[in-house]
């Protein structure tokens, strides 16, 4: 009953000072809105990285030459020629946790067809590549193991290549193209995949048998990578261990000798990128929290002014029977109401900005419920924390002194 009355008194004071209250809230509003928006951006980019990587094949395992590049000194993978076809064969024959695997060699070059030319990357792989990368064919067909054995000059091309080499809309399948002056017959077109989160165009590719690319284009014996897919996502970490073990035997590495290769599952890749974006999120939230803190100090400041201004009113309230606790609660409720109302407006503004960012800036966003809950909790705590001292000061006033105050 009494609390309800104090609540009414506090609401009344807020309504009587609309403009000032709104200005006081501004700090909180901006603070909360930026926390919500920042977290939405952070969560959004994390999610989009996850979907991109999953689309690349979430069971995928990548084996590269060279030492682990995550931390420590990085050695250019291309400089290492430690990965060979016999490594691939060993993995293929010995592993139990892999469903598909392929050697991979890649190079850059110019594609020419008639008067059109276009620079693109060529990937030399075996037919299992499509299964690992989860790529569908739009038309034509994949090359076969026979083509790999004979180092056939056949290729599949992505949409970007199609657009640039065959701009007139003719069917590329069956056409001849030249890659670095080597003629290839186009036998298939890949389904469009679009850009990934890192801005890489996944359709700007040419795929050919690895033997063809090794011998006829790059003139190398080693492999750049071996990629494989684990039988399922759960087994991916074990598959990584298994492959490492096979390769250490292959490379005759003993005891504490370092690996001259590294094996990475997609999960690891996801966590690497997620942790980067997590760092970013923490930074953004830190900045936003500072503005929330400043908002809180704004409340404290205005509450002090308010207590001073209303000294006489406080004296009167005490004269007609208000206890110290009543005055304390009145001002505390006022501070909490300001901060929570600011919080509500801040959440709305934050959601609004998130929609704006998504729509007009095309950034991926995702509003996490926890960010709203936390914002509210922080607002309430801010109100109590920063409202406490001014309210305390008001409640400790001597009624006679307060009544005499001009």
């Amino acid at each position, binding site marked *: *009953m*009494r609390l309800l*009355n*104090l609540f*009414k*008194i506090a609401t*009344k004071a807020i309504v*009587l000072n609309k403009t000032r209250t709104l200005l006081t809230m501004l700090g909180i509003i901006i603070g909360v809105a930026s926390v919500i928006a920042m977290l939405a951006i952070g969560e959004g980019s994390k999610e989009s990285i996850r979907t991109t990587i999953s689309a690349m094949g979430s069971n995928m395992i990548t084996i590269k030459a060279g030492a682990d590049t995550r931390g420590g000194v990085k050695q250019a993978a291309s400089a290492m020629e430690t990965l060979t076809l016999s490594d691939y064969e060993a993995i293929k024959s010995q592993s139990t946790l892999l469903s598909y695997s392929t050697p991979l060699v890649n190079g850059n070059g110019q594609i020419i067809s008639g008067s059109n030319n276009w620079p693109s990357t060529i990937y030399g792989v075996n037919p299992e590549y499509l299964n690992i990368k989860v790529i569908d064919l739009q038309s034509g067909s994949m090359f076969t193991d026979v083509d790999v054995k004979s180092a056939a000059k056949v290729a599949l091309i992505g949409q970007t290549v199609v657009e640039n080499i065959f701009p007139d809309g003719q069917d590329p399948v069956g056409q001849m193209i030249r890659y670095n002056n080597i003629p290839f017959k186009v036998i298939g077109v890949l389904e469009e995949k679009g850009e990934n989160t890192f801005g890489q165009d996944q359709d700007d590719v040419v795929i050919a048998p690895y033997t063809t690319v090794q011998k006829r284009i790059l003139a190398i014996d080693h492999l750049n990578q071996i990629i494989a897919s684990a039988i399922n996502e759960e087994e991916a970490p074990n598959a990584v261990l298994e492959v490492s073990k096979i390769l250490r035997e292959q490379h005759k590495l003993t005891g504490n000798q370092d690996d001259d290769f590294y094996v990475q599952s997609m999960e690891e890749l996801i966590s690497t990128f997620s942790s980067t974006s997590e760092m970013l999120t923490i930074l953004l939230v830190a900045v936003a929290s500072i503005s929330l803190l400043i908002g809180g100090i704004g409340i404290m400041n205005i509450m002090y002014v308010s207590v001073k201004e209303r000294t*006489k*009113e406080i*004296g*009167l*309230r*005490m*004269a*007609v*029977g*208000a*206890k*110290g*606790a*009543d005055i304390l609660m009145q001002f505390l409720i006022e501070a909490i109401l300001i901060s929570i109302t600011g919080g509500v407006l801040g959440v709305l503004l934050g959601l609004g900005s998130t929609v704006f960012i998504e729509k007009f800036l095309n950034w991926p966003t995702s509003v996490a419920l926890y960010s709203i809950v936390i914002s509210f909790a922080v607002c309430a705590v801010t109100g109590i924390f920063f409202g406490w001292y001014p309210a305390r000061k008001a409640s400790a006033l001597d*009624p*006679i002194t307060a*009544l005499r105050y001009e």
Partner: protein
Amino acid sequence: MSKAIIKIEDLKREFTMGNETVHALRGISFDIKEGEFVTIMGSSGSGKSTMLNILGCLDQPTSGNYDIDGVSVKDLSRNELATIRNEKIGFIFQSYNLLARTSAIENVELPLLYNSKVSTEERRKRAIEALQKVGLGERLHHTPAQLSGGQQQRVAIARSLVNNPVMILADEATGNLDTRTSYEIMSLFQELNKQGITITFVTHEPDIATFSSRTIVLKDGDIMQDYNNHNILSAASELAKLPKQDD
């Protein structure tokens, strides 16, 4: 005789200012009985407000005894004093002390907001009754800025009545008003007194004292005179005798 609402005995109040002690009240004793209309007179600085603040439980004496309505105030805590002010006392100030931008009815309701025994409907009902008693039944929703000085003081009087106090304490309640309005207010006080309300009224104007039943005169913290008024003037008839205001 009727019962004593206030009993004070050898009441002293000293203020320490640095290493100097001000003796605002130097051992005062008197009783105020139910239904009395007492004016406390004296020149400025004689201790009237100090006296009234103690009677109103806003301040505690340095020494001496004070009983209000049978309760000894001496050893009460801050919170207990607040409860006594809330339930037993009605205060009226020289400068009205109404809440700005707040309607008359809400101003009058104020003391009841701090009394959890009074429901919202009861509070509203009592506030309206109090305002009707002071002749402002038609001005319930006016804010102080929309009322004259005399009307504002009437709102303050209604506020002092709303908790059915055992006593009303007024400190220079007519000090900010012209003679005509002062007499109107005094006539209201006389009416309330006739209805049985005990009033203690601080003033330094001798004509105001002639409307009360008893006058206590203070000087330098001591009682100079304490007499019953045998010729109580009616504020209403004195008001009629005043020269007409030019409109």
